[in-house]
């Protein structure tokens, strides 16, 4: 897994500290996740027994994963029967070289992309650009972060860390917008619409991901609000799909239930503006649509998760609901995590997919284990259990000093008298707490925090004295 260039010279701790100290970032993130979370509650509230549907969705995803090899074969056969080409890509490198080959064979220089987390995961754009193609992201948020040379900070709203003024200045600095361009969202969107319309009309190849692949008909379901998914699959003569192997539904009954939950969990909409179902290539008598379709089925570490407790992470439908309710994500945004997939889903998925990259293991610490993520998840992935398990896995590899420190702590707090002694000690902290943020040792910790002041009397003393 690549796409982690923000990591250079930083740690999760240093990135978190930077994010917490950035008030503008925190304002932008909090505003966005509050809007998403409110809309989600309203959207799911329009369904009868949404929790029952979530539970059914979890069960159907378990069933899909248990049958995955057979469903993939059925899906691939349907794609082939409808004239599409299929590439089995065990690794990110296999997927990249196949797509680069398709682009080269067509002599394509202009590639238009619709938002796809799978292509972010395999860092496809870098490979295409190295092959001489100009790649343009057409989702507005993705275009913004492409211009800024950033990775997504949210899986459905990649640029939510930027406010309108920052986007305005970016357009002026990078793509020649007039400084007089207004900062109202309608003006900024209008500018982007004009620029990206030219991209759609000129593109040689369109590249998308897939929200759902339906085995029974070999269909690709692409959900977008902007319409870029439709444009990328309608105008360029070649359409390449990069499909994570787990994104299967057996049939349209399963796909329908997932779609009923997806948009409501993501943005609160009843359905997204465009639920685009692509089945095979352009038909006779049609004036548009790709005449050549390639579906790249990507493993990149996924199949290794199928055995054991982490398989449920493969049920994720990438709605972003767990990010919006996470108290950690809310404070730091997506970039502090340092990888392509942020928030609770990213903290589980990244260490599992990041083959042998030890920095990824620390992500399991970026959680309070409060469980809000599982409560929000439309397919009820037990994210907090998986995070805890990843911490256990990491602790098993911890150094002697860390193990000794925790052993001492465990010995102290598993005895009532010793526990009482430590809480008495803590009341003395009342004196130094106001200073903690200013002492050399506490300055970096105290920045961006309100240092709590311990109570003058312990609860157990007050209880003993009748409160």
């Amino acid at each position, binding site marked *: 897994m690549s796409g982690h260039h923000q990591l250079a010279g930083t740690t999760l701790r240093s990135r978190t500290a930077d994010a917490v100290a950035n008030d503008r970032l925190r304002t932008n993130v909090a*505003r966005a996740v509050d809007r998403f979370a409110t809309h989600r509650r309203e959207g799911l509230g329009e369904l009868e*027994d949404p929790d029952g549907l979530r539970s059914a969705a979890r069960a159907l995803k378990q*069933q899909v*994963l248990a049958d995955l*090899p057979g469903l993939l*074969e059925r899906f*691939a056969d349907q794609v*082939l029967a*409808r*004239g599409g*080409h*299929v*590439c*089995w890509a065990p690794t990110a490198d296999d997927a990249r070289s*196949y797509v680069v080959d398709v682009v080269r064979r067509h002599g394509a220089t202009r590639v238009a992309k619709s938002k796809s987390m799978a292509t972010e995961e395999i860092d496809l754009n870098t490979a295409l650009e190295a092959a001489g193609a100009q790649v343009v992201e057409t989702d*507005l948020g993705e275009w*913004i972060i492409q211009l800024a040379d950033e990775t997504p900070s949210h899986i459905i*709203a990649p*640029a939510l860390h930027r*406010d309108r003024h920052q986007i305005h200045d970016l357009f002026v600095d990078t793509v020649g917008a007039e400084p007089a361009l207004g900062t109202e*969202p309608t003006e900024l*969107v209008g500018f982007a619409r004009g620029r*990206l*319309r030219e991209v*759609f*009309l000129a593109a040689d190849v369109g590249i998308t991901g897939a929200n759902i692949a339906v085995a*029974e*008909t070999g269909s690709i379901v692409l959900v977008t*609000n902007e*319409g*870029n998914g*439709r444009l990328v*699959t*309608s105008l360029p003569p070649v359409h390449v799909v990069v499909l994570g192997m787990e994104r299967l539904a057996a*049939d*349209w*009954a399963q*796909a*329908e*239930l997932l779609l*009923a939950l997806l948009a409501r969990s993501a*943005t609160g*909409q*009843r*359905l997204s*503006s*465009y*639920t685009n*179902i692509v*089945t*095979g290539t352009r038909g006779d008598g*049609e*004036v*548009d*649509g790709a005449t050549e*379709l390639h579906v790249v089925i990507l493993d990149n570490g996924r199949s*290794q998760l*199928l055995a054991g407790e982490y*398989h*449920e992470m493969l049920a994720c439908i990438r709605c972003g609901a767990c990010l919006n309710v996470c108290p950690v994500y809310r404070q730091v945004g997506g970039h502090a995590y340092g990888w392509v997939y942020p928030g609770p889903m990213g903290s589980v998925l990244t260490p599992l997919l990041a083959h042998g990259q030890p920095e990824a293991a620390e992500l399991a610490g970026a959680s309070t284990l409060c469980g809000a993520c599982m409560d929000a998840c439309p397919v009820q992935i037990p994210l907090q259990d998986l995070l805890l398990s990843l911490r256990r896995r990491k602790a098993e590899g911890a150094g002697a000093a860390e193990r000794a420190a925790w052993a001492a702590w465990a010995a102290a707090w598993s005895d009532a008298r010793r526990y009482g002694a430590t809480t008495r000690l803590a009341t003395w902290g009342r004196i130094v707490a106001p200073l903690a943020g200013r002492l050399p040792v506490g300055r970096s910790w105290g920045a961006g925090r309100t240092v709590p002041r311990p109570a003058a009397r312990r609860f157990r003393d007050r209880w003993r004295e009748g409160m």
Partner: protein
Amino acid sequence: MAGRAVTGTEHGDRAGFLAPARELLSGGIHANPVHAPPPTPLPSDPVPEARYLNLDPGDLVTTFADAVAHAEGVCHVVEGDVPDRLLDRIVNELDGRSDTSVVVSAEPEARAVGDRLAARGLRVAPATPATAAAAGLGVTSATAAIAATGSIVLDSRRAGGRVGSLLPSVHLCVVPVNRLFATPAEVLRRLGSGADALPPSLVVVTGPSRTGDIEQLLTLGAHGPTALHVVLVTDGQRGS
């Protein structure tokens, strides 16, 4: 269909790709011990359908009209045929624009509206990427409409393509009421039946194009149409 006669090619090693998954799944699937999953239904068990609290099963027309508005579209419920006053209004709205031409897709309902707009002096052409890119209005018809979500379902085989509903700034879609269904399930769950049931592109459109990528504020007209007008043609008996 010529596009269907040719089988695609397969690249990479299918059996080799699937072998690790087959082996790892041979022991069955793990059940989380803390938050146990619900019992996995048998393959024969139906997947439950979502039930929509905003749906009035006795009045799909009103449910649909409300849901179109909820998705920021405009719904016109008309009797018998598209009325002249609605076409006049569209002509007036186009008058003030730079892109006053109209494209129509291949469905008879869309062509009929196109002919009437041409009779009012507008430039009307069949939808192609070139004509649609320059047009202010695209006229189409839908193969189905969905009351609970206010959606219209566009079929590239019937329409002769996709761009008529995609490139012009305004999209007008005509739907006869006998194609109005209650829920997405009634439309989507039938798609698997029949070998050739699915066209190359089937799109469920719910409101105009939009983005929330700037401060999560709703902004209409990101890449597709800025406005969506749905004309639901009834036979005069509401609630059908």
